[in-house]
């Protein structure tokens, strides 16, 4: 019964992990860039919520809603003025540039907000739902619901709108897209902004779900990476499923071996996937 409870909690936490991975997936899907500062953008969103917006007296829901457009703008600016200049010259430049941004963000947060643990305080943090004999943290239900909404919204955006078509076209063939009148740099900036906005959603959920520090950014990057690898590169639905698998692996590991083993259990499951199913759960067939 306890194991069922753990699995269910992991499944729901997977909603948050899915959102964490979606941003990395969008960046890679459109630009073939592994955005190493994505985890720090998530944590930046969480800090913006907990140390700026909430102390300013905004109601939590309004504050949470403001984080998303703020991160959209940050993502757009970073892409347009910094990351875009590193594209098209091989693997190394975007990695070095996004890793540098990550280092700067993490240490600016450390200077500005200290290394103290933070979290979003409120009734949601301690609320629980009882179903049958199972206890589920209410915040994890929110994680899952918001995660599913995010995935649905992105699938509609990419699959059913003109912007989505432009994004997919630029991803498939930037040169031909340019001939059709699309400006790849504009499209990339929009994609990065949308990815960062999902990071904003993830940041709000992170702040509501657990404590965080400036260094949590690296942890979030690794979660995002693992979720994408497990899910299969290039598939948003796969990314979401990867999030569920990773979260379940971590919580089961923590329950069986102790809280210190959550991360290790997650890493080992990911390496196992890499050995036995390197293409991930739902690989996109295109190259």
């Amino acid at each position, binding site marked *: 019964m306890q194991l069922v409870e753990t699995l269910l909690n992991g499944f729901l936490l997977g909603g948050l992990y899915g959102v964490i991975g979606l941003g990395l997936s969008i960046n890679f899907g459109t630009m073939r860039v592994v955005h190493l500062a994505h985890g720090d953008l998530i944590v930046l969103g969480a800090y913006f919520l907990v140390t700026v917006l909430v102390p300013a007296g905004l109601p939590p829901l309004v504050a949470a809603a403001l984080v998303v457009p703020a991160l959209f703008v940050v993502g757009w600016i970073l892409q347009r003025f910094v990351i875009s200049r590193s594209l098209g010259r091989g693997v*190394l430049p975007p990695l070095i540039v996004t890793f540098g941004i990550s280092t700067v963000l993490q*240490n600016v947060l450390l200077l500005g907000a200290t290394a103290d643990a933070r979290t979003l305080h409120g009734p949601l943090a301690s609320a629980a739902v009882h179903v049958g004999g199972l206890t589920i943290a209410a915040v994890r239900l929110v994680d899952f619901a918001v995660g599913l909404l995010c995935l649905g919204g992105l699938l509609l955006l990419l699959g059913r709108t003109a912007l989505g078509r432009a994004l997919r076209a630029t991803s498939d063939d930037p040169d031909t897209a340019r001939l059709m009148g699309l400006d790849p740099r504009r499209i990339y900036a929009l994609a990065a902004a949308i990815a960062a906005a999902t990071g904003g959603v993830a940041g709000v959920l992170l702040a509501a779900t657990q404590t965080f520090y400036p260094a949590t950014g690296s942890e979030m990057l690794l979660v995002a990476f693992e979720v994408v690898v497990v899910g299969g590169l290039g598939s948003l639905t796969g990314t979401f499923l990867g999030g569920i698998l990773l979260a379940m692996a971590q919580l089961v590991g923590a329950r069986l071996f102790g809280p210190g083993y959550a*991360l290790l259990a997650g890493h080992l499951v990911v390496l196992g996937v890499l050995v036995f199913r390197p293409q991930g759960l739902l690989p996109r067939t295109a190259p």
Partner: protein
Amino acid sequence: MTAPAKEDELRGGPRGDPRGGRLRVAIIAASVLVLVACPAWGGSDARATLILLAYHAAIAVMWNLLAGYAGLVTFGQQVFVGLGGYTLAVGCERFGLGVWPAFALAAVVAGVLAVPIGALTFRLKGGYFAVGSWIVAEVFRLLFGTWGFVGNASGMFVRPARSVDPWVIYYVAIGLLIGLVALMVGMLRARPGLALMAIRDAEDAAASLGVHVWRTKLLAFVVAAAGTALAAALITVQTPFIQPNAAFSIQWSAAASFMVVVGGLGTIEGPILGAAIYVVLQQQLGGNGAVHLIVLGVISVAMMLIEPRGIAGLVRDRLGWTLFPVVRKPR
């Protein structure tokens, strides 16, 4: 007339003009002489700084072998820093090996473990390889943190290393750096180096010409692992203490990428130059504080965007001169 010359060139490998050659030999000989004569002109401060410089440079030279010549950009080299350090610590402290046999063993352990690690992470390409290697390092960090035999997360002291004369550490550090540079130059001027650079520049084309892509990359990976582990073992002799969160820290890869990008990716002297800049910045800005890391981050981003060839690459392209010629120019 031209045919024999061409053939000679192909057989002879990379050669600069004779005048540049003499200058090269003079600069290299003078540098080595100054380093060897350190006790005559410097005290313990100079010694400490040069040891710091030598092992940072050694780690950077090995990172450059991967990123600059094999096309393997990695953020997971800290796994070999940790394995090298722990091999030394466990070898001396737990198994009673002498300090220097344990030091040599570090290269063997890291080189052997690099084979399965490479076999696993090579399944990932580009940026995903970089982060996948980081995950492997995290696995080792977490495992060593829960392993009672090595003192869990609080780490262990290496008591036999306390009695090692600092000048011995100095000469081993300098010898290690010179040895690794010589190994790199030798390797790159020979067949494996040519294969590596071919893979870096066009993997499919290299494979179609009969280069064993996977095997050649693995060779570079194993060499880099062994070299990095030796540098790490030396750090552990000097400290003499090791702890998993520091030994398997991402900061090692961050530092390595900074040194290589600023000094000059894909050049031999670049990483050494980058290590000098890194050490000076570290001493000026004080340890690994937030300000120091922000400065490193800003410099590496700016360098990548403004001058991606790094300082040594810039000199090579502007003056057409390089301290260690390993690039073949078709004429």
